[in-house]
């Protein structure tokens, strides 16, 4: 998008908003997009379905403003190649990074607090190379940038969180859908553990409440669930290609609970089977009842 286009859109949008109730087609389109809660895009190109899913929610510009500092948080937790579905699809990540820049973002930062050695995770997952190629600022976690922060929480009152993640203008969560020994599945809310410092293994003692508290605090602008490949067993680290299922799907939404509830259906489960989804629903973080949501399914 060039400057002229930008000005034009801004003026038209401004004019449209200035005339409430007018039958302007643009407003109708905006309202329709507003109403779509979830988009599940299906297709062979991870880049194309990622873009389609975001477009289905109203396009990247409804999330990212000019000059924003954006944090894109994929799952780079493990030392696995992309085919093993233990880490977020690198193409999905690079597409989101590129879209953010296209929407005028000032900086797009990409990082994760890896579980095993970060050098290996960043490299082997392919995310470091892909995100860098798209212009993303890929960095390893710097221990000095964790700060004890208050959470509006029930279980966790405070925890050291990564300042760059919390202080960013916009936070885009890009989890990958996987099984997990305790929380059954690891989806969007579980992926937020990647901004936690300290001995975060302890949160498994009361995982559901902790994740909801964390999700309340971080409150991502947009959640893009990578289900290009999903890991159906031996998660979250995987390691056996037989456990990987190719779904060629990307799910996008604003509601953390809804995205995770939809994610559960990819495994033949329901949102109500996942502890943190139930807890999130109860705490008012979002809606797990998919019947109440407007879901668009698009084939690309």
């Amino acid at each position: 998008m060039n400057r002229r286009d930008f000005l034009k859109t801004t003026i038209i949008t401004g004019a449209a908003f200035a005339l409430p109730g007018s039958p302007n087609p643009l407003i109708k389109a905006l309202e329709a997009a507003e109403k779509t809660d979830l988009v599940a895009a299906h297709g062979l190109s991870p880049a194309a379905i990622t873009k389609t899913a975001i477009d289905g929610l109203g396009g990247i510009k409804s999330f990212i403003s000019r000059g924003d500092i954006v944090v894109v948080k994929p799952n780079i937790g493990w030392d696995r190649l992309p085919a093993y579905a233990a880490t977020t699809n690198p193409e999905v990540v690079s597409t989101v990074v590129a879209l953010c820049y296209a929407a005028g973002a000032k900086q797009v930062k990409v990082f994760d607090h890896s579980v095993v050695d970060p050098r290996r995770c960043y490299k082997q997952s392919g995310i470091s190379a892909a995100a860098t190629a798209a212009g993303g600022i890929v960095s390893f976690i710097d221990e000095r940038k964790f700060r004890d922060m208050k959470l509006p929480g029930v279980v966790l009152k405070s925890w050291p969180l990564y300042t760059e993640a919390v202080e960013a203008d916009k936070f885009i969560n890009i989890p990958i859908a996987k099984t997990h020994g305790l929380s059954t599945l690891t989806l969007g809310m579980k992926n937020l553990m990647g901004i936690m410092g300290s001995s975060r293994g302890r949160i498994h003692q009361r995982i559901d409440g902790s994740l909801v508290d964390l999700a309340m605090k971080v409150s991502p602008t947009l959640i893009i669930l990578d289900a290009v490949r999903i890991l159906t067993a031996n998660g979250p680290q995987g390691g056996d290609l037989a456990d990987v299922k190719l779904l060629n799907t990307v799910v996008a939404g604003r509601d953390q609970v809804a995205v995770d509830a939809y994610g559960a259906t990819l495994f033949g489960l329901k949102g109500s089977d996942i502890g943190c989804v139930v807890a999130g629903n109860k705490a008012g973080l979002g809606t797990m009842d998919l019947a109440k949501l407007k879901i668009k399914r698009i084939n690309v």
Partner: protein
Amino acid sequence: MIRKIRIAAQGIFLLTFLWLFVQTESKGADDLGYPVKIFLDADPLIFITTIFSSHAWYDTFSLAVGVIVATIILGRVFCGWVCPLGTLNNMVGALQKRRPPRAPLSLHWLKYCLLIFLIVASLFSLQLTGIFDPIALLIRSFSLAVYPAVSYATKAVFDTIFNFNIPVVVNASEFIYMIFKKLWLPFQQPFFLQSAFLGLLFLIILGLNLLEKRFWCKYLCPLGALLGVFSRFAFLQRSVSEGCNSCGACTFDCQGGAAPALKEKWHHTECLLCMNCDDVCPQDSVRFGFFQKTQSAPLDLGKRRVVGMILSGITIVPLVRITGINKQAGASEPKLIRPPGALEEKQFLTRCVKCGECMKVCITNGLQPTLLEAGLEGIWSPILIPRIGYCEYRCTLCGQVCPTGAIRKLELPEKEKVKIGLAMIDKGRCLPYAHATPCIVCQEVCPTPAKAIWLEKAKVMNGNGSELNLKQPHVDLELCIGCGLCEAKCPILGQPAIYITSNGESRSKDNQLLLP
């Protein structure tokens, strides 16, 4: 002139050594991209004694043989021009500006005794060379003490500035810090057991230069002694012409203490080819040239010393192997978790030269030097201490940098199968067992494709008398490879509720739990 070329060469070799040392670190791929162990490969002492002790040839011999050939032709050029420890000794020695008031100690025979001792011991399967070999010693000291200390100090300075957070200053310092990180700082601060001890030993070796320049090289270095023997009849000879008036100007500057002023009674085997005598000679009467007929004093240790050292070399073998530690070491020592690809313990010890390369490269810092866990002869050999760092599932770097094949270089599919031990669960400490508290961290992180930790659904009673559903972990003895990731991440700190023992390690026939 030649002296300047020599100093330049020393500088280049030292910088190459340091550069390769810094590159002995993962960048995320499973290879390092540089021949980081090249100085160890070129070390003839390690080469010869390893062949003696392990009764096996090893493939990377061309450089070591090259150094031997170079020594036969030129003399101890390796010591004078190449050896990075020699250069460091030079640099520290340069601090000593004035001629010391006393006569030099002339203990040259000491290093030959040490050499005989090491070679005889290696012939009887005891490999102690690594403790004294200059290259192994230097890499070990740098890896385990010097580099961690310098890194710690640097980080502390930058962190202090960062925490003060003075606007412009912090930007500048962070910029410099970033460059340092890219150029030479480690990815993460290394921590090692015995680092202070090893650092102190190294400081003493450097400090001896203040007593006498190149003290180590002249009197202690067994590699220097070996090369001295090879250089005895080197083709390149030094001659002193008639013009010499025995002014003695060359004596103090001679790096090897070879008594160059003594003309035909000088010690050729101590000459490091530094060319200082040529440089300082006011009469310009020193020449180095090929096929000259010159005389020098013979290398004579005396029969008693030779016989004494041979006997010591033999006696030491049973002596170090009859300690109480040896009784428990080996097959059943639970803490002796060797790196993946390590040979069976006895063979391992005949090869390991304690150079510390594997510990330097270990991606998690988990490989640590032993003190007595592997017996006296195993001092400073590598063991994995999972509490400090686990064994990264898809990493094979330690086997790639091992100079003697004590740790075999494994291909990834083999590495993923090699067991270095087994995990055991301590039910008295484990949260779901002992404390009615959910936790699955060990299962979550377990890296084997089919998880080696399985969860059993269990109903337990908590303190309030109410029933609780949770999952209790079990170790699959067949699948567990003993990598220690579970132990490293177990939330029970201090003494973890899951821990690795060496039991079940692939390399041992005896140290097994299960029927084959």
